[in-house]
């Protein structure tokens, strides 16, 4: 078990290094990607461009440039090329906003997704199931940014039920915080509620036909005990895995659309802004930050899995 954990975490580290190299290469091979030219302004003076190249070290060989960037990343000294702000500080500033959005939405989507999934399976083939199935499949077919924009417009500008975007820190004013988060939470969770309820429904319907459920019933266990201890327990395992991955992805930049629409000033929006200006250091920083959450959670999911299911430990 320990060996598996260590190996899985080491693998995580290598994946992060590979990602940083790929990001670096992408932004060094693209045409018009020369940061010196962009920094020098609209009508670049060759001497100025040369000076910028010297100052920022763009004349060094690529491996040296990469090594310098990574050294700065680990020391937390990574700075934006375009406005000189410290990447780590910007990320830390955006983190509470992204965390508020993603954690809140995750609670909503897990609770509602599981609830709807169980209800649909319980009434399989009948009206509640049909209704939930329809809502679920429509939910996964909605473009997040479109729903967000329409909700924002109709519930904010038309009837002023909600504030027009922006973020109020929880520590400053909890009521305003909640008030500002309701629409973003709704927008982000709709898609996942659809996915989770559909997946859980089919998992439960698969599990009730398993042999061990028949055995449990033959042993004379009560229906209630069979449902909670045997069916639900097994049907929920894939949901736990999926949740780990989705939560990591949303935390790691997946909420970029919701953040931009509601102007939440989170990490995703920071990434979107940096990409717009092709500013390599913040892009590298946000990609590593995002990938960190994704690989960390998928490693945790794998380890949790290996803990629950010894077969994986042996083959992995």
């Amino acid at each position, binding site marked *: 078990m320990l060996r598996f954990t260590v190996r899985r975490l080491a693998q995580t580290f290598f*994946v992060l290094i590979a990602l940083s190299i790929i*990001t670096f290469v992408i932004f060094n091979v693209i045409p018009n990607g020369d940061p010196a030219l962009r920094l020098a302004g609209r009508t670049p003076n060759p001497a100025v461009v040369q000076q910028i190249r010297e100052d920022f070290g763009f004349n060094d060989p690529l491996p040296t440039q990469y090594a310098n960037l990574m050294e700065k990343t680990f020391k937390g000294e990574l700075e934006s090329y375009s406005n000189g702000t410290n990447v780590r500080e910007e990320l830390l500033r955006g983190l509470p906003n992204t965390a508020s959005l993603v954690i809140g939405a995750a609670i909503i989507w897990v609770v509602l997704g599981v609830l709807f999934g169980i209800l649909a399976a319980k009434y399989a083939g009948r009206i509640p199931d049909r209704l939930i199935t329809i809502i679920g*499949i429509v939910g996964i*077919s909605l*473009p997040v940014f479109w729903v967000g924009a329409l909700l924002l417009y109709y519930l904010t*500008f038309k009837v002023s039920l909600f504030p027009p975007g922006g973020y109020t820190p929880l520590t400053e004013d909890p009521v305003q915080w909640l008030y500002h988060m309701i629409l973003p939470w709704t927008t982000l969770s709709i898609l996942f509620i659809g996915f989770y309820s559909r997946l859980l429904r089919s998992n439960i319907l698969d599990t009730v036909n398993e042999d061990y459920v028949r055995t449990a019933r033959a042993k004379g266990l009560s229906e209630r005990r069979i449902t909670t201890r045997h069916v639900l327990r097994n049907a929920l395992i894939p949901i736990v895995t999926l949740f780990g991955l989705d939560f990591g992805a949303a935390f790691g930049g997946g909420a970029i659309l919701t953040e931009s629409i509601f102007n939440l000033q989170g990490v995703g929006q920071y990434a979107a802004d940096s*990409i717009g200006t092709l500013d390599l250091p913040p892009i590298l920083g946000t990609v590593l930050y995002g990938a960190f959450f*994704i690989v960390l959670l998928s490693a945790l999911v794998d380890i949790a899995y290996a803990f629950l299911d010894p077969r994986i430990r042996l083959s992995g």
Partner: protein
Amino acid sequence: MSVDGKPIGPGLSRKYLLGADRNGRDVAVRLLYGGRNSLLVGFGAALVTATLAVSLGLIAGYFRGWADRVISGVFDIIWSFPVLLLAIALGTALAIGGLDLGLFTIGGSSLWIPTLVIGLVYVPYLGRPIRGQVLSLREKEFVEAAIAQGMRPGRIMFSEILPNVTSTILVFGTLIIANNIITEAALSFLGAGIQSPAPSWGNLIGDGVDFLATAPHLAIVPGIAIVLTVLSLNVFGDGLRDALDPRAKVRLR
């Protein structure tokens, strides 16, 4: 009214079914041409994903060993990238400069860019399940029989194993097309997908959002087009899965 006096807004006339946009272009026509672009990118990207994922999955699952380690490693790396971030970064970067591959060049506003970007980032989502299936299929008797008959690995992969994973490819493929259309819309909405002036449902919504107060249909109609298309693909994918996978047809007693 826009610059040249044609109606913005719900000019539901016989001539302008959905009115005109801020440049006086007929929205109904742009919606149709935008649909063509969105569908082309959605299906094209799914084709890119399927081709790469199936060949890599077959090789990794069949040969195992170092081939599997390399391919699974690549899948892991792409999988760990924040997908939307990667797609936006690639899309924006390539839209500015295009792509010069030596033999052929792709212009910055080419449809190929969103197609390749979206196709590439979703490869592991199909590649991983296929590799898993191939790993178990290669131990089956019919593969053993093929080896005993002296069949070469290439032929075993394509005529013995591939037919057995087609249902996975079809089901995942349909869902991936649906997903691609939404991703393309999101990228175009952010300016990292299909480049203006070429229309797509995503950038029609992006343009329309500015006019929600005066002409809400400009953002609502292309959104409905996306929802209906994606919804049909999802329903179709569900039906296909039920039809191809007998295990999925589980009913409560």
